[in-house]
């Protein structure tokens, strides 16, 4: 139908092809008329949806509680102000642990890796910053997943569907940010909003359960509570959102931007 919708200039649609005998036969004409009408009808039928989207654009950036399926209108992202992130502070990490119920198992090599503080140094300067799932627009973890368990929601949040995850850990290998980890031990008394289980891969969910309620991720709240205010959460698609304004105003970077994954988590200094 989409091909017929643009059929005035293209000849991809059989309705526009001349008949085998040169001039269009009455039957061809009738069919062309029908197809043109059908295309027009489709446009009309689509119009309410378009209007709806236009109106929806004026709504507040935060999601309202109990709403239906998420759309690509939003793209949720994080901005981390490295200058404000304190070396000795790990409030975001503890908040994440508390929010999702993960804790260190005593085996550092296989511990959960939802979010961690990293110290980077170079050119005579050091900086401390949190690294978590970067919620890429083109996530390698999704590309490699053999079962479709690793997926990107319409609003840009990259998740693991643990119902489908077979624990192959291909995504753990593929992620350039080492953002994913594997649950090795059986768990019990998980939190109702954060199901986790042995044999599946897990990572930062951008607190999807909070975002769907119109709240901010736990790390962002904790960072603000410490007074550092180094993390900003918001809609990257909305030019009026706080995060978009900051990104427009100050230079920001994506980690390993050269890989072309287009992360939704941005790092910057100054504000």
């Amino acid at each position, binding site marked *: 139908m989409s091909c017929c919708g643009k059929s005035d200039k293209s000849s991809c649609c059989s309705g526009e092809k001349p008949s085998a005998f040169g001039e269009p036969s009455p039957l061809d004409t009738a069919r062309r008329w029908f197809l043109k009408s059908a295309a027009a009808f489709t446009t009309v039928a689509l119009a309410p949806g378009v209007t709806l989207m236009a109106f929806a654009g004026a709504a507040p950036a935060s999601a309202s509680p*109990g709403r239906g399926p*998420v759309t690509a209108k939003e793209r949720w992202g994080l901005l981390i102000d490295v200058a404000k992130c304190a070396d000795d502070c790990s409030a975001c990490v503890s908040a994440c642990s508390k929010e999702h119920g993960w804790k260190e198992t005593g085996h550092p090599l296989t511990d959960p890796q939802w979010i961690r503080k990293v110290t980077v140094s170079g050119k005579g300067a050091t900086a401390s910053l949190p690294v978590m799932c970067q919620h890429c627009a083109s996530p390698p973890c999704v590309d490699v997943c053999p079962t479709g368990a690793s997926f990107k*929601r319409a609003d840009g949040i990259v998740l693991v569907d643990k*119902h489908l995850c077979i624990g192959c850990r291909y995504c753990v290998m593929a992620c350039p940010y080492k953002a994913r980890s594997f649950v090795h031990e059986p768990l*019990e*008394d*998980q939190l109702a909003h954060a199901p986790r289980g042995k044999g599946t891969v897990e990572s930062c969910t951008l607190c999807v359960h909070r975002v769907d309620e119109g709240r901010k991720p736990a790390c962002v709240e904790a960072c603000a509570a410490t007074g550092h205010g180094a993390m900003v959460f918001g809609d990257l698609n909305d030019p009026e959102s706080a995060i978009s304004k900051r990104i427009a105003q100050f230079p920001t970077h994506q980690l390993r931007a050269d890989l072309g994954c287009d992360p939704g988590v941005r790092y910057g200094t100054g504000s």
Partner: protein
Amino acid sequence: MSVRSTILAFLVLAIGGLLTTSALRAGDGTTVVETVPPAVSGSTPVPVPAKGKGDQCVAPTDWMRRNHMTMLKHQRNTTVHDGDRTGRFSIKACVECHAVKGVDGKAVTVADPRHFCRTCHDYAAVSIDCFECHASRPLEPGKAARLQGKSEDMAALTRYLEGLGK
């Protein structure tokens, strides 16, 4: 010949009589059994799952009994992939409403045979994988629906524990 016929006739009558008697007994038995709870009905015990909070479930009980697994599976996809949290067939809601309290006053986990899912699933020999990831009991206090176990049990347990201390 006549002796054989007599013996045969006697046997037939005797067996017939026996059958009739057992049929009557069975009939009597049935009327008696009807007066006891369905949990021990006849020779086949049936599961009696704990009732949830409130008057009714999100759908009629008979319908839920047959379709809860399909609805959970359907809603898990819409919730996880589409982010649609408006559905009413949520495993979280099942656990919050149907949770069974043990004698210690806390809701029991799926490791306990009294767990509301296990009551039927053990009976039907159908394993459930949900609780390998999902919480099998509400962690918030006061969320469990029914106290399973009697207060006498609790009192006996307290007496026993006090006895240990002496």
